[in-house]
Structures are given as structure tokens and as C-alpha cells.
């Protein structure tokens, strides 16, 4: 090392090589909140601890849902997923933990292009929770399941001592049927592909932050929680040139695009001017110094689509009630591989890296 000063190029190359290295090491000796934030620490935990012990071909892609074939090579393809919900507060403008738990799992299935069949629901309830609250949550789960056309077919309830859970935690798992033969995922992504977003960014995360009432910002923002399998079906009906679908929940659009860029060894270049962000949300983000690219959404999808199909895909999204603000927000390039860049509205450009910690704990 001594005697040879590194050039800027060498330093940056080393960082990029390190970022592309598939396995991250878990160096901490205790779990901190950062391990749950969806950024680098979460990846390190999942890849070096869980994947290490549970590795199998279905889990390995670490996708929103696992896709498996039932009953031999000609059997139907099924999507299977699970998600836990620990959001605080339990009730917030635009939704509650129950609705979120149904839509969250429905959306993980939808990102595999699946039609949801049924869900399970597990409740970990804290001693002392008003029955009325639980009844409200159950009712909104029922309404959300009905709206999504899915049954809650199995369930479980546990009660823990006061102080051991924050009101109630909900886990949902889901099974869906994949009625197309597309292989959605990062391996299908090619340079030249377009990146589409189905609507405005950061609504859910900012709504939760405001709903906590810690900020004294006088603005009412609503969560965007919604089931996405309908708009996905509309998109897949419009074109079979869809490469990958992701719902940018925890960690936001920046995180899912980084995951896609790394896994597909391509670069994603976003156009800041094309990114839809609602005026109130943008105002709140500006005041709080939060980048909407990193804030959670619960009713939006990002789609990577072949260039020739981009217009048809956009038209399909725009025609759906959940896609009124859809836009083409970026494109895939070959260089620099594994990175997400942003052409700023100001006329400059910058890196959009994976988030390190989360400014908004427990948003879903």
C-alpha cells in the first residue's frame, strides 16, 4: 500500500467491485434496528445468516415470492410468499395494519405475476389491547381480502404479556397461481429496457411518519396501500415483454432498483424530472430532508419492460385506476454495472446507493 497512492479511479473501482460481491458479511454481534430497515444491514443478515442455513433453489433468488411448479413439469406454477407487519401506529390515514397485511402479501404475489388464491393470517397480540381495536383490524382485513378477491383460509392467534409486543403484530402468507409462462426477474433484464413506475412515490412512508404525530407538521397524508394484482394483470395483458416487477416497499424505489441492477449486472439511470411525487409528500420530504426515493410505498409497482413495449405498458398502467400517475422514469444501460444513477432535475447526475439505515423505523 505504502509508496503507491491510489488514483480516484482505482478507489472507485474497488468500491464497485466490493458492492458487486454477492455475499455480504454480518459483522455485528447484536441485532440493531438497522437490520430491519431493508438496506445493507438487512441484506447482510439475510444472506450470511438465513440463506446460509436454509439455502435451496426456491429461496436463493430472494424474490418477493418463490415460484414453484405443482405436480410435475406440466403442472400449474404457484407463487408462495410471507410477510410480517409491525407498523406503528396501528391505524393511520389511508389504512391500518390489517389492510396493509392483506395488501402487502397480495402484492408480493402480484410481483411474480400471480393471481392470489388464499392467505393465512397470524396474530401476535399484546395483553391489554382493546378488543375493539382488534375487531377493527379484522374487519379491515376482511374488507381488503374481499376487495382483492382472496380468502383468508388459515389463521393463528398468540397473546404475549404486556410490553412484549406493540399492540399487535400480524403475519400473512399467501399462495397465488401464475397463469403465464414469463420468467420475471433480474436475469431477464437487458440494456435498453425502460423502467416504469405505476404512480407517486413515498406516500405510505411519509403518511406513517406524519401519523406518528412527532413532527408537528400540519399536513394530512394518506397511505397508498392497495392490492396490485389487478394492475399487474392489465400490464401483462398489454405486453409479454415485461422483464421484472417489484413493489418498492421498505427501502423505497432506490432499494429495489439497486437490487435489480446488482442482480442483472446492469445500470439503471433514473430521470429525476420524470419521477412522480405528490406535492404534499414532496413538501414534507423537503422540510424533513428525506429523499422520496428511499421512502416506502404500499400500492406502487416498478416494472422493467423491453423498449419496444414501453409505450404499450405505460398506456396499460395509465388506463388502470391505480396507475393514473404512471410514468416511464428511467432506462437500463450496460455501464456502470450494478449501479443506479439519477440525472437530477438541476442538470447534474449522482449515484443512488443502497440505504444504510432507515430514518423511519417500523413503517410496515
Amino acid at each position, binding site marked *: *500500500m505504502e509508496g503507491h*497512492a*491510489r488514483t*480516484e*479511479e482505482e*478507489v*472507485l473501482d*474497488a*468500491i464497485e467491485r*466490493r458492492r458487486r460481491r454477492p455475499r455480504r458479511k454480518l*459483522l*455485528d454481534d*447484536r*441485532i*440493531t*434496528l*438497522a437490520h430491519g430497515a431493508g*438496506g*445493507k*444491514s438487512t441484506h447482510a443478515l439475510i444472506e450470511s445468516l438465513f440463506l446460509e442455513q436454509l439455502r435451496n433453489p426456491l429461496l436463493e433468488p430472494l424474490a418477493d415470492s418463490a415460484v414453484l411448479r405443482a405436480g410435475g413439469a406440466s403442472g400449474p406454477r404457484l407463487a408462495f410468499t410471507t410477510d410480517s407487519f409491525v407498523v406503528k401506529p396501528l391505524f393511520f390515514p389511508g389504512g391500518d395494519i390489517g389492510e396493509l397485511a392483506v395488501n402487502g402479501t397480495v402484492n408480493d404475489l402480484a410481483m411474480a405475476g400471480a393471481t392470489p388464491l388464499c392467505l393465512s393470517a397470524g396474530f401476535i397480540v399484546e395483553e391489554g389491547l382493546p378488543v375493539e381495536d382488534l375487531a377493527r383490524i379484522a374487519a379491515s382485513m376482511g374488507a381488503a381480502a374481499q376487495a382483492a378477491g382472496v380468502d383468508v383460509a388459515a389463521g393463528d392467534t398468540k397473546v404475549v404479556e404486556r410490553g412484549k409486543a406493540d399492540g399487535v403484530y400480524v403475519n400473512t402468507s399467501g399462495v397465488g397461481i401464475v397463469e403465464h409462462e414469463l420468467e420475471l426477474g433480474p436475469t431477464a433484464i437487458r440494456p435498453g429496457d425502460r423502467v416504469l413506475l405505476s404512480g407517486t412515490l413515498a406516500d405510505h412512508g411519509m403518511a406513517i411518519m406524519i401519523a406518528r404525530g*412527532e*413532527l408537528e407538521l400540519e399536513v394530512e397524508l394518506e397511505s397508498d396501500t392497495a392490492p396490485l394484482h389487478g394492475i399487474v394483470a392489465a400490464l401483462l395483458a398489454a405486453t409479454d415483454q415485461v422483464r421484472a416487477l417489484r413493489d418498492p416497499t421498505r427501502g423505497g424505489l432506490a432499494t429495489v432498483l439497486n437490487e435489480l441492477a446488482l442482480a442483472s449486472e446492469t445500470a439503471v439511470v433514473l430521470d429525476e424530472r420524470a419521477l412522480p411525487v405528490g*406535492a404534499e409528500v*414532496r*413538501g414534507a420530504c*423537503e422540510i*424533513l*430532508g428525506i*429523499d422520496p426515493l428511499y421512502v416506502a410505498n404500499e400500492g406502487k409497482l416498478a416494472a422493467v419492460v423491453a423498449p419496444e413495449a414501453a409505450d404499450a405498458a405505460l398506456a396499460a398502467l395509465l388506463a388502470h385506476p391505480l396507475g393514473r400517475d404512471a410514468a416511464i422514469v428511467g432506462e437500463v444501460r450496460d455501464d*456502470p454495472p450494478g*449501479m443506479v*444513477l439519477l440525472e*437530477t*432535475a*438541476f*442538470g*447534474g*447526475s*449522482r*449515484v443512488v*446507493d443502497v440505504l*444504510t*439505515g432507515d*430514518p423511519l423505523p417500523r413503517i410496515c
Partner: protein
Amino acid sequence: MRFVDEYRSPELARRLADEISGLVEPGRRYKLMEVCGGHTHAIYRHGVEDLLPEAIELVHGPGCPVCVIPMGRQDDAIALAERPEVVFATFGDMMRVPSSRGSLLDAKARGADVRMVYSPLDALKLAREHPDREVVFFAIGFETTAPATALTLLRARAEGVRNFSVFANHVTIIPAIRALLDSPDLRLDAFIGPGHVSTVIGLRPYRFIARDYGKPVVVSGFEPLDVLQGVQMVMRQLAEGRSQVENQYTRVVREEGNPLAMRALAETMELRTTFEWRGLGFISQSALKLREEFAQWDAEVRYELPGVRVADPKACQCGEVLKGVIKPWECKVFGTACTPDRPIGTCMVSSEGACAAYYNYGRHAGRRRERAPA
């Protein structure tokens, strides 16, 4: 969006960039320091450097409150947080700053009651809500945040809140700038002055920079056009051979500052004889402590603190980065041992820190420029 988009117009930016290029003397190189971390963040977030001619280098100064807190003070903070009776209230930025015994986030995982707050008044509210606990607020920042701490102290006294105290680490910008100017290894042409600090202290305190050191100062705002116009005004002064204190941020900063805020500061706090700055060492009269009248709200009086000076990690070159002597990527551990997820130095922690900003946002720009044909 009103009050935002007009400060981010690419057309105006291009016009300013052209004017700036026109002010560059052929063959001359310029080193301009933006003192404030808020500027550093804005420069990287919006890609401002992409619009500047190659001859102009922006040097990222010491005005990042997280970055200048020395390791020993962070150790003290963790010792406070780990007291069983204490609820330790801190800005989110400080959560990941490493001490010799891990970060506040680690202390929290070990069981310390650490709460993130957005304002010192939130910490006071915590104290009112938890009368059985002792709430300690980790006060950091320059003259920008110090008045909020001062007002909180005044309110705590007025309301007689006894279970609240402040661990004061407020620093003042002028002595740091003077220390930089006196530092032999530094060569700067001019300063982009801090905007929000100046809202409080006004323009007068910067006069010595122009008068005694012959360096232009332009106090600037935090939108990308503000920064670009600040650069343009500095370049114009240099082209015309002037060195003056000018105000780009007239919509917020007044000549005399904010007398009300200054009065609240003077009522509650006074200068320390000396204070250690990370990487810059001890700078005399560069920080604030609580006045004796506020001793019962002063965490340093109420609690036994280790108060040990901890040397910065050897490999870490935050000091040189803060002085603008080296660029972030020139530090030996940048991007290898020191990354935003496992920072060694404070400059890698805060989003306003030069290293974190460069790592998270900027590194592709540097590379592209290097690859671009001359």
C-alpha cells in the same frame, strides 16, 4: 412546487454555469471551500459539480456538526445513555457515530433507552411525559441549532422541569474558520459562507476573512441555484480582485443576524475556554457550555462523565478531509475499512459529511469526469 422548483431551474443553472466559466482565468485553478455540510449535501444531491468548469474545485469544509464531534464526547454520550435512569434523546444523525465502545445504536441494542427526536423541545416533552425518568438531550450543532437548545432551556426553567438536562456540544463556526485560515497546509481562494448559521450571527463576524486574509466570502443558501450563484459571486470577486463579504441568501439572512436568537444564546450559554474538534484538535473559545445559572439542567454538572480524550483512529483522516487538505477518496481507508455502513470517521456518518456525500452520491461524477476527454 412553489418555493422549491424556482431554485432548481436547469435553464438558470446553465446560464450561471456559463457566467462562471467566463470568469475563469485561463490556466488558473480555484479552490473554493463550502464551509457548511448542508452545502456539501446539496452539491452532491443535485450534481452541482457537474455544472462547474474543471478549474474550480469545491473543498468541503468543517461545517458538519456530526463530523466535528470528537470521539471522547461520543464516549461521554454513550456513558450517559447507559445510565439506567436516563432517557437519552438525540438527533437521528448521531445514532450511528462510532465511539470507542460502539455507536448509540449499539448501546440501544444493549438496552440503553435512546430516543430519536427532531427538536430539543421534543426532548423536553419526553421529560414532561416521563416524570420518573431523567431525560438528557444530546445537543449538537453550530449557531443554527444552538438557539433552539437555548429556548428549550429557558422553557425548562420557566416550567420548572427538573428531570431534564442538556449535554451541550454546541460549537461556533468563526474560530474553526480562523483555525483553517491559520493552518499552514491549506490553500483556499475563497469561501461559500454558511447560510443558516448566518441567519443567526449575521454577516459582521466574517469580515476579518475578507479584511485580514484577503479571501472573498459569499454567504449562500442551500438550494442548488443558491450554491451556484454563490460560486458565481465568489468568482466575480476573484476576477475583479476584490475580497468582500457578500450575501447571496438575502431572502433569509440579514446583515445583523437574529438578535432574538443571539440574546437567548447569551442568556443560557457562554464560551468554553477550549473545545476539541474532531480532526482539527483543540480550538480556543470555539464551543458553548451552559451558564452557571443553568447548572441544574447541565448534564456535565449533574452526571459523572468519563471525560477522557480519545485519540481518533490512526487510519482515519477526517481531519485532513475537514480541512480540505485531501479529498475523501484520498483517505487511506475510504471505501475499504470505512464505509457508510461501517464508518470509522464521522465524515462517513452524516449525510452532510464530505465522505458520506461523496460515497453515496458523488463517486460516479468524479469517475465520469476523469474518463471524459479533456
